[in-house]
């Protein structure tokens, strides 16, 4: 009995020694954690971007977020990434009326441009269902018509990946791969998305800085867009598309649906989130910056061209009780419509599309 006990104790001691000697494969503590703070730079006319206190931006966090954004590891069959519907060359949309997911099933709505998305603080998605980029980044992975995956499996894949554990360590200071979570992945993606800011080199921005001049047509359009008077009609644009972001981030019904009753909208939009009838058929106002690259337009991509969009607003759209009161038939001539379009195209910012910091890091 005595001998048996002694053997057992010896075995335990030996096992304990073995455990102590064997390195923990998930241990990341030997990797340097020295994050470098990232300072957001934006055109001087832009508002201050608010960064969540629990997700300060770092170069390492942005680098990780950029990799995750472009990596199909987030989809169930490893064929699609965030960037599949938000392409840099299309101002981070995909030029489709609605976007298909990994199973080829079309979603309900058009992919929104991510240009300046870090400044949007009154809800994200067309219906505002996510309050922050961190919340938003979690949803497409498990959406059945988008990436159709599960975060549990994504996180397991990230833990086993040859590079990501080190990247998470560098970005967030985790000590072990076991600490990788979907929340950290979402934080990294949000950090990258907050860097997607206008270059400030659009013609409009250069005119604002007195580095360029509008043509006569652009100037006429500018006057109508902002209702600067001078004998031109008010095109009522700036109420919802005010400078500098050219969106007020409000939710409005712009009269595109030919229905009578507020419960008849084919897509309830904001109303499905707030459960208030008055919000039915309302959608978030998108930015007009880089409109030249983001066709087709509206939440369902129904308008293929900017001319179709302008024709809709000039017509005043269809009437419903909650249609925005500023959308009514406008008395603009064809020439004035052309001038308005010329001004809107001064918001084109090709430098944003080619910024090396926004491109696929795996190319």
């Amino acid at each position, binding site marked *: 009995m005595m001998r048996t006990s002694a053997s057992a104790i010896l075995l335990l001691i030996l096992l304990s020694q073995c455990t102590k000697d064997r390195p923990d494969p998930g241990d990341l503590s030997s990797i340097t954690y020295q994050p470098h703070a990232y300072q957001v730079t934006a055109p001087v*006319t832009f508002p*201050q971007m*608010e960064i969540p206190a629990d997700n300060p931006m770092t170069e390492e966090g942005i680098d990780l977020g950029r990799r995750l954004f472009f990596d199909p590891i987030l989809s169930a069959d490893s064929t699609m990434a965030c960037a599949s519907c938000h392409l840099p060359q299309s101002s981070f949309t995909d030029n489709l009326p609605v976007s298909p997911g990994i199973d080829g099933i079309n979603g309900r709505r058009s992919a929104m441009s991510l240009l300046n998305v870090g400044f949007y603080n009154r809800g994200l998605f067309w219906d505002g269902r996510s309050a922050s980029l961190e919340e938003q980044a979690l949803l497409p992975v498990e959406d059945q018509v988008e990436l159709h995956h599960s975060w549990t499996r994504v996180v397991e894949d990230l833990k086993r990946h040859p590079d990501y554990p080190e990247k998470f360590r560098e970005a967030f200071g985790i000590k072990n791969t076991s600490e990788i979570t979907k929340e950290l992945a979402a934080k990294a993606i949000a950090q990258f998305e907050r860097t997607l800011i206008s270059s400030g080199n659009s013609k409009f921005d250069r005119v604002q800085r007195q580095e360029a001049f509008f043509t006569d047509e652009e100037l006429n359009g500018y006057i109508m867009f902002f*209702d600067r008077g001078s004998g031109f009609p008010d095109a009522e644009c*700036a109420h*919802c598309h*005010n400078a500098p972001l050219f*969106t007020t981030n409000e939710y409005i019904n712009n009269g595109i649906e030919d229905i009578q009753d507020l419960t008849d909208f084919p897509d309830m939009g904001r109303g499905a989130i707030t459960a208030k009838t008055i919000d039915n058929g309302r959608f978030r106002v998108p930015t007009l910056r880089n409109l030249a690259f983001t066709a087709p337009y509206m939440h369902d991509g129904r308008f293929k061209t900017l001319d179709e969009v302008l024709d809709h607003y000039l017509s005043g759209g269809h009437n419903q009780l909650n249609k925005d009161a500023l959308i009514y038939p406008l008395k603009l001539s064809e020439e004035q419509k052309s001038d308005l379009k010329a001004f809107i195209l001064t918001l084109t910012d090709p430098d944003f599309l080619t910024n090396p910091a926004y491109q696929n890091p795996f190319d």
Partner: protein
Amino acid sequence: MKYLSVLLLLGITLLGCNKDPEKGSLTLDFTATYGDEALVLLQSYLTPEGHQIQFSKSDFYISNVYLIAENGDRLDLSPVEFVDLTSVSTSAADAANGFKITFPDIEAGKYTRLGFGIGLDPTVNATQPADYPSSNPLSLESHYWTAWGSYIFSKTEGFLDTLGTGNLDLGFVFHTGMDDLYRQAYVDVPININATATTSIQVNIDHETILFKAGNALDIPASPVNHNPNNLGLITKIIDNLVSALSVQVQ
């Protein structure tokens, strides 16, 4: 002797602690009505002519909110607040509940006046939304009008049946702004702030008065959309009516 000094000092310190005034809080509860009825968006009301009218948006800035204490001292409560009646007027229940703004840490005591500005004073109005973080009410891009170089002080929007046929055939949009339209409003009422309960003051805004105040009514069909600084007469009428439309009840 040394111990006595220490005890004296301790006593003075404790006395100092006891002198800290008690703090209470005040809630301004903004409610919207049309005449005597609670204002609910997209619900029909009757104009003085008997035509139907509905509202789709109502909001305004107040600024330089203050109380006057019994001894005449002024206590500043907040530089700017945004009163978003649209957000609380989607149902009768929400409308009755009102839009609440609470000011904490007010020295308990008796006050005799509540005052605030309607709109923004010229100093603040010289700034722009981009000057503020998004949590500040002055960051609202939707409430800045570049053509004026001014914040939009108030928005009142809706639809009107101009012909009396029951068809809401005309949208109206009245936005006010610019330095000249900044107005001061105050009410002299006894206000008791105490540490045990929040004091509430209901501030009601009668939208019938905003549009149809006797002797100062708007002719909506003649000018249904106004955000034009060249038509100051109309927007001056609206902002003056808005001041008249306020009524206060201490609860």
